[in-house]
């Protein structure tokens, strides 16, 4: 078993290598990596709910969407957030995500399992409906175009500069979520995931725990939205559409739920296949579909489950898991 510190070290080295290598490649790769990192923050927020609290949210695009629309509306209607006030927009995006999640949470947290999934889906669609139909504010189907990125001494119009900024946000989010899930609060979330009734008997207010986790996830969703809006300078109902939520869930499952890093790896792989492979070959969707199917058949723990699976096979300790690894059920 690799110790926790070594794992952290590996992640840190990977991140630094990523930040070093990507800017050296073509500017399109830089843009893709920037988009993937902004989206990875959303995927990690989903992981907080799915992997650590055991709630599969199908409406995470809602917080992502309000963050993105907030940025776009402020920038185009009020010329706000294109200078140093970009940081204010970041804070507002996080707060708006939290606020919306605290509202939606009141409805959603009452239910569990598939009901939670359906309620979050419905609430997410409400936000999509607003984006689609509130023409005067959101531009409806046509969406909103922003002109350029913020410039506050640091010109984010430069793809590489913007890459580093999003990288910083990504790294900080990863660390913040990591600290969160290892805190007492995070441990009790895991307890709720494993057996909610037992936590209740132990005297924990599980509803409040889940509610707070939901709000925190909403905040990270809002942050991801603010950054996402600036990656392409375009926000449309497609940003808030159901597939955005589904994608973020799939990315988490692909990378491995309950690992945070897995969410980021899942995002990287999906972006790599969908936005990079699709520029090379027309059959990219088969590759993406194949990856999903193979992961679910052979790696129910996601890609982050590979090392433990590998260990089990070499040491042969766990016969049951070994069978599962070689024979799909």
């Amino acid at each position, binding site marked *: 078993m690799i110790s926790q510190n070594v794992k952290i070290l*590996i992640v840190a*080295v*990977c991140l630094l*290598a*990523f930040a070093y*290598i*990507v800017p*050296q*490649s*073509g*500017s*399109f*790769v830089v*843009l*893709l990596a920037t*988009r993937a990192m902004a989206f990875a923050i959303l995927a990690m927020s989903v992981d907080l709910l799915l992997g650590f609290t055991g709630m599969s949210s199908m409406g995470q695009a809602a917080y992502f969407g309000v963050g993105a629309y907030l940025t776009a509306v402020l920038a185009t209607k009020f010329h706000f957030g294109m200078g140093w006030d970009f940081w204010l927009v970041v804070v507002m995006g996080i707060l708006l995500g939290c606020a919306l999640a605290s509202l939606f949470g009141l409805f959603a947290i009452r239910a569990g399992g598939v009901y939670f999934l359906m309620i979050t889906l419905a609430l997410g669609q409400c936000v999509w409906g607003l984006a689609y139909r509130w*023409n005067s504010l959101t531009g*409806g*189907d*046509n*969406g909103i*175009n922003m*002109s*350029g990125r913020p410039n506050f001494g640091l010109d984010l119009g430069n793809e590489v500069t913007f890459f580093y900024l999003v990288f910083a946000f990504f790294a900080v989010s990863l660390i913040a979520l990591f600290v969160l899930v290892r805190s007492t609060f995070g441990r009790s979330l895991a307890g709720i995931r494993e057996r909610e009734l037992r936590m209740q008997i132990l005297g924990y207010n599980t509803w409040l725990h889940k509610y707070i986790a939901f709000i925190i996830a909403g905040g990270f969703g809002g942050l991801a939205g603010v950054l996402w809006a600036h990656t*392409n*300078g*375009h926000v*449309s109902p*497609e*940003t808030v559409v159901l597939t955005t939520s589904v994608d973020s869930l799939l990315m988490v499952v692909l990378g491995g739920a309950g690992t945070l890093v897995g969410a980021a790896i899942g995002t*990287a792989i999906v972006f*790599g296949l969908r*936005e*990079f492979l*699709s*520029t*090379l070959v*027309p059959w990219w*969707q088969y590759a993406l579909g194949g990856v999903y199917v193979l992961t679910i058949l052979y790696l129910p723990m996601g890609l982050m489950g590979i*090392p433990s699976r590998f260990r089990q096979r070499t040491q042969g300790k766990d016969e049951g898991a070994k069978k599962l690894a070689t024979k799909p059920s």
Partner: protein
Amino acid sequence: MLKKTLLGTALAAGLGLAIPAQADELRIGFISPTTGLYAQIGKDMVDGFQLYLDEHGGKLGGADVKLIVEDDQGKPDTGVTKAKKLILQDKVNLFVGGLLASTGYALAPVSTAEKVIYLSSVSSADDLTQRQLDKYPYFLRTSWTSSLPNHPLGQWACDQGYKKVITIAADYAFGYESVGGFQKAFEDCGGKVVQKIWPPLGTKDFGPFIPTMKADADAIFTVMVGPMALQFPKQLRGAGNKKPIVGSGVSYDEFVLPFMGDEVIGDVSSLHYSAGIQTPENEKFVKAYRAKYGKMPGYYSENNYTTAMWIDEAMKQAGGKWPGPEQFIKLMQGIKLNAPRGPVSMDDMRNPIENVYIKKVAKTKLFGYDKEELWNTTVKVYPNVSQFWTYGKDKFLAQPVYDRDFPPCKFCE
């Protein structure tokens, strides 16, 4: 895991290297949805462009063409990413395509930011070549504005003596702009739009909408997109409603027409193209397209075929060398073409001036094909229609862009 990540990024870095452009090569990026809901339309777009290229030995105006097709999946946001890929990595001279109006709105700013020509070959969002044109100096259009063919249709419907019309249109910007154009011209001529119905985009069951249609209307104006087009006439006639239909051309485009039943015979629509236009240019195009791809070309194909033709002419005038974006726009604006759709040229707002065909679906034999098929036969041609119809540029631009609530429905109650 470390090794894997490093390998992945190294691979990405290696593939991401820009390919240097060759000297006399014209690099064209082509953005269309080749997967997803609009995949078939996306393919028709590419086929139209490719047909012209193949007919001319892969050259436009003497320059070898490198055509790079990118899939935007019908999502504006993905379209932007793909456009940036084409510009930053493939170093294209210009990019073409974009199906949905929303994609057009998303791609135009990319052309401004990167100073690369965006030639919109299908996307018809009105305002791009109207009130917002100043924002997009590198944008030009070879297709149409949504309202362009619907102004003449409004006039035509009025001339037929229709007094009251119901509109039923897909609930998004393209629908609003199409209805707006029709309503404006129809009501200016003395007609009345008495009811506007907006089924959501992608509706396949019109059961909830058909019974609400007012009984005293003389005709129905429709804007049906994709699968909606196939279902609506069937269900309307099935419900016993026999009112004449005058519709946007997309409701009866050749993209769906061959799959429709005989109930659509006699339905009228208007567009800047019909596969049934009986000119030698169109006959040649239709035959070549059918021989190569085994299906009828619709306006998605024709628009892109003509776009290639337009670029060809501009490149010829530039002597086979890419003249740079500013000069290219000037050349494009000076060209008059005899395209399959008829004579086309470009107005000073960089939108085409073209014929509008009022067409009626008929079962007949055309161009020497030995089978009876459904064709959009021309009833009336409005020649050289501009996006401003007869209103004049300044007066037209003074009113807001057509929307769900503009023009207001004065005669609805």
